[in-house]
């Protein structure tokens, strides 16, 4: 629970101090990249803070490498 609160607090602070003061001068492209990265990160961290098990990218990379070098997989 505390971790979730920390995650929410940090994202709130980022939006208040990093986005709101400067966003007026940004292009729509700047804002789009900002929000996409923010939302993806927030989604993952929020779920991790609630102990939700998420897919592991390392398993995918290991499977890909195992296709070429089966003894490594």
């Amino acid at each position: 629970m505390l971790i979730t609160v920390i995650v929410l607090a940090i994202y709130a602070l980022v939006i208040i101090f990093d986005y709101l003061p400067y966003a007026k001068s940004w292009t729509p492209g700047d804002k789009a990249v900002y929000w996409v990265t923010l939302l993806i990160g927030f989604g993952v961290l929020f779920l991790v803070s609630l102990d939700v098990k998420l897919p592991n990218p390392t398993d995918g990379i290991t499977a890909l490498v195992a296709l070429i070098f089966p003894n490594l997989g």
Partner: protein
Amino acid sequence: MKKEKLTARQTITLLTMFFFGSTGVLGVNTDVGQDSWLAFLMAAAIAFPFMLMYSRLCRLYPDKSFFELAESLLGKVGGKIVVALLTWYCLHLCSLVMRNFSEYIQVCTMPETPQLPVMLFMMLGVVYLVKSGVETMGKWSVLMLPLIVAVVILTVLFALNRMDFSRLLPIARHDLGSMANSAYYSVMFPYLEIIVFVCAFSGSSETEKPYKPYIAAFFVATALMLTITLRDTMILGAHVLDALNFPSYVAVKIIQIGEVISRIEGSISMNYILSGIAKCSVCLLAAAKGIAYLFGLREHKQFLFPLGLLVVALSTIVFDNLIQMFEFIQVYNVYSVPFSIIIPVLIWILAEFKHRKESKAQTPANTQA
């Protein structure tokens, strides 16, 4: 807006800290036991031509970033694909380094503390450093590297009574194949990760002669890591070294001189955090520049905070546990080949051809004039 540049001295210090980064925490490959230091020297010899290659790339096109160079050589589509791949590599490496350090902190110093807050606060420092600019990163590294070197030297001096030189014997006991295999690990991690540094800082160097800073950093980092490897082997011995996850921490932990000097492992934790911040900041800067280049954004500093938090998010899910983190090293040595060998060598070869063509085109024009 004045383009921020690194001086030669700042390049040396920052690149040295980048090399030292997670290698200080995880140590070099110890498959060949007491010959690990020899295998590491082999790795340095193998990696040296790559340093020359990167220096040459920076010399050929000093005002172009690596991403701009990739697009000019491979075309718009090919260039964007290469930039996307390298951006992913920088992001992934940043998350791997972040996870290495949070695991180290949890295992060695704060076992009751969850890793997520540690990562979040470490990333806040990294983002602040990168947002402060290239020159600030360079000046910070000039201040921090002497501290790191001083701690390494002090730990060696204090550990002299614990070192047993016979633990290095017999020298060169392992066959060349085993040594080469161990050396390959050290070539891929950390030497060839320099591609990330080049992505972050190519086109940002004050000096038009990049050979000196790159090679100087290479030798300083090699000397540092070799010193640590020898220290750990002589204190712990080959078998214990191989069994430990974080051998340097344990080696320094047992240092004791009388009743006065003991429990100095906190000093090397400080070393690792500093070099970890340096490595993460270089990776984050390279990833931010890659994303800005991919989407045609004016400025990469705008989305450093969300990108940093994305890296933290990635680092929480990248491994299930500590064992998987160490097992991934084998896979990493294959996975990183396209990013750290194939793409840079391809870019270098194409850059040489293009430069030669441009030089020949200029020569007849000069003759006519």
